[in-house]
């Protein structure tokens, strides 16, 4: 429908909508998160759901204890390499459509533990993240901002065409490979289909004798 006509009608007191808008409205107004906290960010996530901040205002009050009933995974906290396979498996077990908010510095990049041998440097190496929130930990307002950002993202999705959401695309996978514990690191260290950023700072080739960049991720 023409946007101008729609505005004109709404000024006259006639509300018009499309099936797509109605569908997206339904999707974004009942995003149920998974009861899932990894570290201190989870405390802020819990605070967000409680009376003072009240995430329920946005339709996300029902934290589901099972991935089968959840739509949103809030990766709240440090993802250790011990925990990463479980996080990916939980994400895989969620039904479509599913969304991910990476909450806090650790979940988006490893945060203060980035140099640690045992911490994953961002969960987006294994699962597609919809919204990243920086902060250590982010305040409840930041989480709500991320949630509203996700709602706007859902609202803007068209259900057909090339830029339709992942879950409506037959080609797009619903499951992502679960990493396994290797001798030194998780194997694979990243999902190349998701994380294909080429590091320009690390020199490659025979001239870089000291550091060939292999151990970095």
């Amino acid at each position, binding site marked *: 429908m023409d946007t101008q006509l729609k505005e004109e009608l709404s000024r006259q007191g006639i509300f018009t909508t499309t099936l797509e808008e109605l569908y997206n409205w339904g999707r974004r107004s009942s995003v149920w998160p998974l009861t899932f906290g990894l570290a201190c960010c989870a405390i802020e996530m819990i605070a967000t759901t409680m009376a003072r901040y009240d995430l329920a205002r946005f339709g996300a009050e029902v934290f589901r204890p*099972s*991935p*089968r009933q959840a739509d949103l995974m809030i990766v709240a906290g440090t993802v250790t390499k011990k925990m990463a*396979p*479980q*996080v990916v*498996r*939980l994400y*895989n*077990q969620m*039904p*479509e459509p599913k969304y991910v908010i990476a909450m806090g510095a650790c979940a988006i990049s490893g945060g203060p533990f980035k140099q640690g041998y045992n911490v994953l440097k961002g969960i987006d190496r294994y699962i597609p993240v919809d919204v990243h929130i920086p902060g250590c930990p982010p305040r409840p307002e930041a989480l709500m901002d991320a949630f509203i950002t996700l709602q706007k993202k859902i609202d803007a999705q068209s259900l057909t065409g090339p830029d339709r959401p992942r*879950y*409506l*695309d*037959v080609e797009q*996978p*619903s*499951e992502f490979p*679960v990493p396994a514990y290797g001798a030194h690191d998780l194997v694979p260290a990243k999902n190349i289909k998701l994380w294909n950023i080429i590091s320009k700072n690390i020199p490659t080739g025979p001239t870089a004798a000291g550091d060939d960049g292999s151990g970095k991720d």
Partner: protein
Amino acid sequence: MHSPFVEIYRPIAILMIVALGFAVAPLITAWLWAKKFSIKKPGPVKNATYECGLDSKEDAVLPFRPEYYLYAIVFLIFDVEAIFLLPFAVSFAGLSLGASIVMLIFLLLLVEGLIWTWRKGVLVWV
């Protein structure tokens, strides 16, 4: 059709039907939507048994001993007995002979049950 009974209960019947439809319609719509439109993407991890994200060790359906169940039933019976015994004890002096005999039969039945469960070995926790 014009009996007063039908006249009185017609609104309630309509209300019931509407309420039932209100509850069932979304479920049917969701089911039809899942059958007709939604894209199915099953997978080995997605369909696996949910064990808090860990690899599931065994099947979710596994046999377990029914001892606890028997124990619970025996407990329930004697729990009810205790509830009956208290008023019996309180009003014991004022009871008629018939009431006392009835109560004693009740107790006897339960004591018999206790002996039976004892001999069956239910009370022994393995």
